[in-house]
């Protein structure tokens, strides 16, 4: 069967299934469970109308429960068992995590990532949005800056692996070093700083995202407030930092927290470049390392990540809601 046909059949089944579900469920409710007849038809109609909203909500609640709520509970449960899931170990997995120096390294590195990547991506995005705002070729510049967003993390990592390559004929960094008569080196093996070289990749990707959102926010600032500030004698820097930035602060916070959440989930970049070696481990890649080998431990890491992300997520949602209000 051709994929197109398969797709069409799936759509037909899905839509038809939904229609059939609501139609049949209503009939069963009105005709079988609470028929408007017998001793007290009025009461039956009222009861049916009380049940009906739940009938309509059920598919959504079921899907959310199955795909969102159950995995959380299931993961937590699984993290309390040993590697093959046969023996209950309580919080043993979490204890072993706390004792593992490479886990602590991952937490520390992740902390660095969360501090640096959202800050730099948001700042550069804001800068790009402001600088491209009033110039003719601004849109071309914007498209170029946005383009990395369309590349997968693994693809981006490969591109940057070439930039960082030791061979000066391939790697840009080492080509420059050689041009200045320095020895080529592998940036990804420089202790501590290699973390930042990896962060550059994510910043490169996320700057475009920040730029697009912040550019829209900048355009939304009422023109008169800017003109009033010009008349008040503000120079371009004062205009930007005292008039424009404060007015788009809610958007900046949303962009910042959105990137923060992303940072706490990205494993591909580390996985595809250093594989977590040379002191570049972060929590998601640490989790990947144990996945399929020790699922108990891997789910424990997943749970730790979730708990770290949660407050940022709540903050993000509060800000986004405040902005739409």
């Amino acid at each position, binding site marked *: 069967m051709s994929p197109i046909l398969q797709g069409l059949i799936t759509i037909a089944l899905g839509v038809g299934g939904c229609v059939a579900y609501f139609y049949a469920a209503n009939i069963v409710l009105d005709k079988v469970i609470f028929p408007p007849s017998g001793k007290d038809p009025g009461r039956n109609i009222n009861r049916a109308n009380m049940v009906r909203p739940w009938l309509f909500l059920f598919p959504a609640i079921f899907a959310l429960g199955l795909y969102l709520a159950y995995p959380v509970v299931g993961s937590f449960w699984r993290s309390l068992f040993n590697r093959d899931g046969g023996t209950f170990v309580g919080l043993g997995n979490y204890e072993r995590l706390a004792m593992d120096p490479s886990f602590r390294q991952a937490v520390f590195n992740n902390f660095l990532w969360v501090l640096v990547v959202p800050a730099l991506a948001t700042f550069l995005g804001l800068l790009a949005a402001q600088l491209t705002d009033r110039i003719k070729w601004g849109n071309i510049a914007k498209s170029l800056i946005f383009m990395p967003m369309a590349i997968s993390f693994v693809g981006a990592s490969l591109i940057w692996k070439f930039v960082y390559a030791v061979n000066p004929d391939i790697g840009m960094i080492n080509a420059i070093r050689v041009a200045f008569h320095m020895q080529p080196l592998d940036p990804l093996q420089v202790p501590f700083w290699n973390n930042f070289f990896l962060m550059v990749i994510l910043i490169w990707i996320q700057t475009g995202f920040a730029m697009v959102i912040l550019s829209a926010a900048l355009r939304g600032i009422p023109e008169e407030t800017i003109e*009033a500030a010009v008349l008040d*004698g503000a120079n371009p820097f004062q205009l930007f930092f005292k008039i424009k930035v*404060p007015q788009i602060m809610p958007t900046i916070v949303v962009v910042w927290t959105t990137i923060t959440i992303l940072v706490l989930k990205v494993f591909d970049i580390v996985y595809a470049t250093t594989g977590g070696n040379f002191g570049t481990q972060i929590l998601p890649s640490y989790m990947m390392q144990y996945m399929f080998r020790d699922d108990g431990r891997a789910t424990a890491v997943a749970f730790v990540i979730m708990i770290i992300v949660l407050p940022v997520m709540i903050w993000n949602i509060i800000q986004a809601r405040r902005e739409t209000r």
Partner: protein
Amino acid sequence: MAELKLENVAKSYGEVSVLENINLDIKAGELIVFVGPSGCGKSTLLRMIAGLEKITGGTLEIDGVRMNDVPPSNRGIAMVFQSYALYPHMTVRDNMAFALKIAKQSKEEIDAAVNKAADMLQLTDYLDRLPKALSGGQRQRVAIGRAIVRDPKVYLFDEPLSNLDAALRVATRIEIAQLKEAMPDRTMIYVTHDQVEAMTLATRIVVLANKGIAQVGTPLELYEQPRNEFVAQFIGSPAMNLLSGEITETGEMTTVKLDGGGIARSTIPTRPEDLSRRVKIGVRPEDFVPTEDAAIYTGRVDIVEALGEVTLLYFEAEGGHDPIIAKLPGIHHDRRYTEISLGADPSKVHLFADGQSLLYR
């Protein structure tokens, strides 16, 4: 104290010309109002004086100094915007203090200036609020306060009352008039499309139309001696009635035989060569009086609008012309569908030839 001089000022966007040959002398302490129909360029002219729009021709001088290329903040002006343009993230106090902070004034000076302005505008209780916690009228007062704090030589108002409701508009208008009185030596330029604002506030009104100035004069000059048909019809509400005819008698007193059959006499003098010239006479609705003898206009009343103190009578319009309107004191409900003859004092009858008043030539 500031005098403004506009010499052949022009504005064009590329090929499209918006304003041409604007010549205007504004004396220190005047309150000049720019009026005109939508799109006549009155706001553009104001923004050119402010420095928000580039002047593409001619020169602008403030106190004898050419201002064309001086940045807005150095022109000694402050502007009040229609949309208030308050900084939403700053308290009322910070909004008013912003310009002074930028100018690096001392904290004491800033506090003194802000408190004085707040006191003047009854904003003292609201100094620590954000603009969103204020009503429309209060916001506009903050915007005015922001201008006062800077103590500019020239105040610019861009339709400052348009976003307020009717009652508040009247109150704020009076406040602006009082503000002007409190600062007699400050020059103010005020843009509006509201005639009442123009007539009540202005020392002189500038009527803008067709890319240029149609007339400059005191409110009563514009009302009593309009220079052309446009000004005649733009100032006053309802608009002045215009009737076509032919001059039959010239001299100190001019007689016009109207196409509708009526006879009009005007105190505007004409010359012998004006005999049989095609002209239009203009009579304001409020200058019409019912008459028994030699009528300017006779017609049947189609619609009666009784406003209480006056009644508007709309006469049946002939063939696409605007209806003749008369404004009579008192209530005249019973006049509907009756035939009325209208006359007017010859001193109240205006004469226009080719759109221009015969009074000015």
